[in-house]
């Protein structure tokens, strides 16, 4: 799954957030209505699509979708 496909998955999953706001360089914590619940959904989504289980600290170390994607790729390699 490349970054563009990952963004599509995020847009589909977070259907309560306007899809045009979900871009590779968006700081996801800055999105209106972002909550700790979204962080859990993100971890479940990454686990399901990539087979990578992120810890809370992993998620805290990144702020944009692109950084998150790279983090997952690094863990896969």
């Amino acid at each position, binding site marked *: 799954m490349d970054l563009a496909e990952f963004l599509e998955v995020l847009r589909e999953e977070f259907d309560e957030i306007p899809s045009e706001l979900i871009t590779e360089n968006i700081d996801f914590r800055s999105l209106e*209505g972002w*909550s*700790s*619940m979204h962080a859990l*959904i993100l*971890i*479940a989504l990454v686990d*399901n699509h990539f087979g990578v289980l992120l*810890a*809370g600290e992993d998620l805290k170390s990144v702020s944009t979708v692109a950084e998150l994607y790279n983090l997952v790729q690094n863990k896969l390699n």
Partner: protein
Amino acid sequence: MALFSSSGISIEAVSVCVPQEIERTLEYEWITENERLLFQKTTGIEERRVANETTTCSDLCYTAAKKLLDELNCFNEIDVLIFVSQSPDYYLPATAITLQHRLGLSKSTMSFDVNLGCSGFIYGLSLANTYLQNPAFKKVLLLCGDKSTISTSYRDKSTYPLFGDAGSATLLSRSGKESNWYFNFYSDGSGKDAIIIKEGHSRNPYKWGEELDYFEVEPGVIRTNKHLSLDGMKVFNFALKEVAASIKELLDFSNTTIESVNYFVLHQANLLINESVRKKLKLDKDKFPISIRHFGNTSSASIPLTLVYALKKEICHPQKMLFSGFGVGLSWGNVLLETENVRTFFIEGTLHEK
């Protein structure tokens, strides 16, 4: 290593009692409407049963057990009474002993409490199994449940809308059948802080006259240390890492193909966790019955509640099932078993209230 099998026992009946009072997620005013919708979509919880001030977990378990014993007419046959709960009636004595008397069971009944939460039903089944391997024991009454809502702070969005109250009674007996039951269990005390009530017992005792000291953990989470505290991220990571793996281990140990199991009845933690486990096992939704939408997370009662609520008809016929309990401790375990002609009872409202 807690990985073993046994045979010769069966579940005769499962009975569950829930309070009549309902609280709905969309009416939880501490959080915004958007947060309520997201919480409901993610956890699956639309409503929960909440016991009133005068109802305890033992009242719920008592009502469930009384109905079961009345219907099966076996008050005089119970050799062991086990009460699995983290909301006992008193600091002491053990609630199981008060229930022996209240249910009118013989003084020769062996009665004791077990302090476990979400994994408690599986542990209870293994204890029942252990006693029933001895011919001296014919029937074990296993009571599991919690009044979790007594420990949650209304101003804590991470716990208050998650937990519901329920009490269950499961009757196990020696069947003489050859079919095997397989168990595996795990404990990880390094995760003790993930779900904890810090104050009120020996480590941090309650001091007379002490006032409740509320503090803000994060936005939307205001509680005291006498309330239940839950680190959602840690619990979530634990469940994703351990549950599916332990289920696969048990299937391997028992030489059972995943397809041959009719139902996987998981502790109803929240839908996001349960769905993640299901996807890891690559199984269809119809093999994963749920009750969480209407009852929330009911601790050690959640598996019996799912059996009587979602599998009432199915459990009358022969089924191969896997039950999985996981949570506070951290503690987790699974049992693979066969059920047949299990009688079920579902009661709303306790006898105590009537």
